[in-house]
């Protein structure tokens, strides 16, 4: 439950209790006061009764005294004073009766008193003739007896004693009441004081609590305010920073745009230059293919005519020199042919399509079989995958590799050429293995360079371009090529075919033809 509500409820109960106690005290005090006033009335009443009794006693004594006096001076016959006195006594008795109307004991005593008085004032025998009203102008017959006097005195005493006892008992009750009232007032006062004190304490405590809470709240608010201000300022700094960064970035972007434009211009210029260079190269290669080969053809043609038509007339040595001329011509011709092929590669972009490598291998095999002559070669062709490659270029790769394999294994009695593929680290590796001459692995790095040869021309003829061509084709397809060998133990040539073709290699000049 809510603390404030609890407190309020507690306070309400406290107030209610206090009001109840105060009401009780008030009631007691009022009652006590009323009783005190009543007692005063009772005291006065008793005193009145006692006075009237005293009066009656005095009157009786005076009447008796007068009667005695009358008795002594019977001749006078004067009764006037006596009449008055007796009426006075009657009045007193009547008054007494009225005063003690609520007290049957006193009433009984008064009735008895009345009876005695009546007897004294109107004796039954002498006064019956007189008749009429006893209290009137008729002279009062008075008969006093010692017996009645004593009786009256006792009655009066009894009446007085009764009245005094009544007063005493009443004042005792009032006093007892007053004592109770005092105790109650003191107790109630103490209780009220206690309640007030407690309530005051609680209120004070509550006020203190509230004050503390308010102070805390104020402090918290101040703290919050400070924090908010701090954070606002911090946010401001951050915003400033951000704006700064945005400006810097915009500036940088502008610069980059400018640089890009510059770069584009430069690239365009370079592309144009490259295009021109390519055209020049094309013209050059055309010229080479046309002009360089022509003299070779002539040399070969005329030396052949010499051999054919005049061979029989020539001495042996001359025929040998003619052979030399012709083989040199053939070698130069193949050099030119291979160089042209290599230069053509540099400017051709691979036309990729999905081909079965096995088909390409078979085509290459057919093309190279003429070089193999009639030699009995054992071909071991394993599983070959399909690949996304330039079919013409890859056929060339196989042709070059198979030509090499055939060439370098021609001195073997049982040449074996193995073609296959393996999977390694997500790459497809293709290989061609022969059991031919092999090469010294120390020079393996020279193998794929242009015009690099590891065998003498009189051992194995060659231009040193075939493997360079392979290297270029594989590189164009984004793959790698390498070889393993030991002299006399054959050689294995490996290459990979990646699935992704580097974009820089696919962007080539249009119209590059050799």
């Amino acid at each position: 439950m809510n603390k404030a509500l609890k407190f309020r409820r507690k306070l309400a109960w406290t107030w209610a209790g206090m009001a109840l106690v105060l009401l009780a005290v008030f009631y007691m005090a009022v009652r006590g006061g009323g009783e005190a006033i009543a007692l005063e009335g009772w005291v006065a009443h008793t005193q009145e009764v006692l006075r009237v009794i005293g009066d009656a006693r005095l009157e009786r004594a005076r009447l008796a005294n007068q009667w005695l006096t009358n008795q002594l001076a019977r001749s006078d016959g004067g009764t006037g004073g006596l009449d008055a006195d007796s009426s006075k006594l009657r009045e007193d008795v009547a008054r007494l009766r009225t005063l003690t109307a609520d007290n049957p004991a006193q009433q009984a005593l008064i009735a008895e008193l009345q009876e005695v008085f009546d007897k004294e004032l109107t004796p039954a025998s002498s006064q019956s003739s007189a008749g009429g009203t006893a209290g009137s102008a008729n002279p009062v017959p008075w008969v006093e007896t010692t017996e009645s006097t004593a009786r009256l005195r006792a009655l009066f005493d009894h009446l007085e004693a009764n009245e005094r006892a009544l007063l005493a008992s009443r004042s005792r009750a009032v006093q007892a009441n007053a004592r109770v009232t005092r105790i109650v007032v003191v107790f109630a006062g103490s209780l009220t004081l206690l309640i007030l004190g407690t309530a005051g304490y609680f209120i004070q405590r509550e006020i203190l609590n509230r004050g503390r809470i308010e102070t805390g709240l104020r402090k918290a608010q101040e703290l919050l305010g400070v924090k908010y201000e701090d954070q606002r300022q911090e946010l401001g700094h951050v915003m400033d920073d951000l704006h700064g960064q945005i400006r810097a970035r915009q500036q940088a972007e502008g610069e980059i745009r400018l640089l890009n434009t510059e770069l584009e211009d430069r690239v365009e210029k370079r592309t144009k230059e490259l295009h021109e260079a390519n055209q020049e190269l094309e013209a050059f290669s055309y010229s080479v293919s046309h002009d360089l080969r022509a003299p070779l053809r002539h040399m070969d043609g005329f030396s052949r005519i010499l051999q054919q038509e005049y061979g029989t007339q020539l001495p042996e040595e001359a025929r040998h020199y003619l052979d030399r001329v012709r083989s040199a011509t053939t070698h130069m011709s193949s050099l030119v042919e291979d160089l042209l092929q290599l230069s053509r590669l540099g400017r051709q972009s691979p036309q990729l399509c999905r081909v079965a490598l096995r088909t390409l291998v078979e085509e290459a095999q057919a093309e190279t079989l003429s070089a193999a002559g009639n030699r009995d070669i054992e071909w071991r062709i394993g599983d070959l995958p399909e690949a996304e490659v330039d079919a013409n270029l890859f056929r060339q790769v196989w042709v070059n590799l198979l030509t090499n394999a055939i060439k370098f294994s021609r001195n073997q009695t049982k040449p074996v050429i193995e073609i296959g593929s393996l999977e390694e680290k997500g790459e497809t590796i293709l290989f061609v293995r022969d059991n031919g001459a092999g090469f010294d692995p120390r020079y393996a790095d020279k193998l794929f360079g242009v015009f690099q040869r590891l065998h003498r021309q009189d051992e194995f003829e060659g231009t040193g371009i075939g493997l360079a061509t392979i290297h270029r084709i594989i590189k164009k397809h984004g793959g790698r090529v390498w070889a393993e060998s030991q002299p006399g133990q054959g050689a294995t040539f490996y290459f990979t075919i990646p699935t992704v073709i580097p974009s820089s290699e696919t962007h080539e000049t249009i119209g590059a033809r050799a």
Partner: protein
Amino acid sequence: MTPQGYEILLVEDDPADAELTVHALRKERLANHIEVARDGAEALDFLFCRGAYSNRSFTNPPRVVLLDLKLPKISGHEVLRAIKADERTRAIPVVVLTSSNQERDLVECYRLGVNSYIQKPVDLQKFQEVARHFGMYWLVVNHLPPMAAFSGK
């Protein structure tokens, strides 16, 4: 075969090439009358009977023209275009005999209306073989229309 006419016009700027071609054709005894033009201009003069050849007649054309593409002054392409563009010479068979194996040349020649395109083999023996084939075909097997029908006269 017209006895007094030329059977073959060889357009070849290289004398060695010309000599080898003539040697090959003569060896096969396919042609005795071979005229050699050393450039495109000379070839056109011969074919259009002008300049040094003004005494020639359109009605007596060679049975075949062997045309090299790479020629001084006027290229083989232009000579071919001129032959095929003119009503009087259009019927003359033109065989391009070249060392160029370029697709561009091949396409261009056929677009201009060449009758045959032969790449010269480097090997003499092969060349002799080729010469024998095309000599036999164009000079013996092939029939030509009467040239008067194209002379425009």
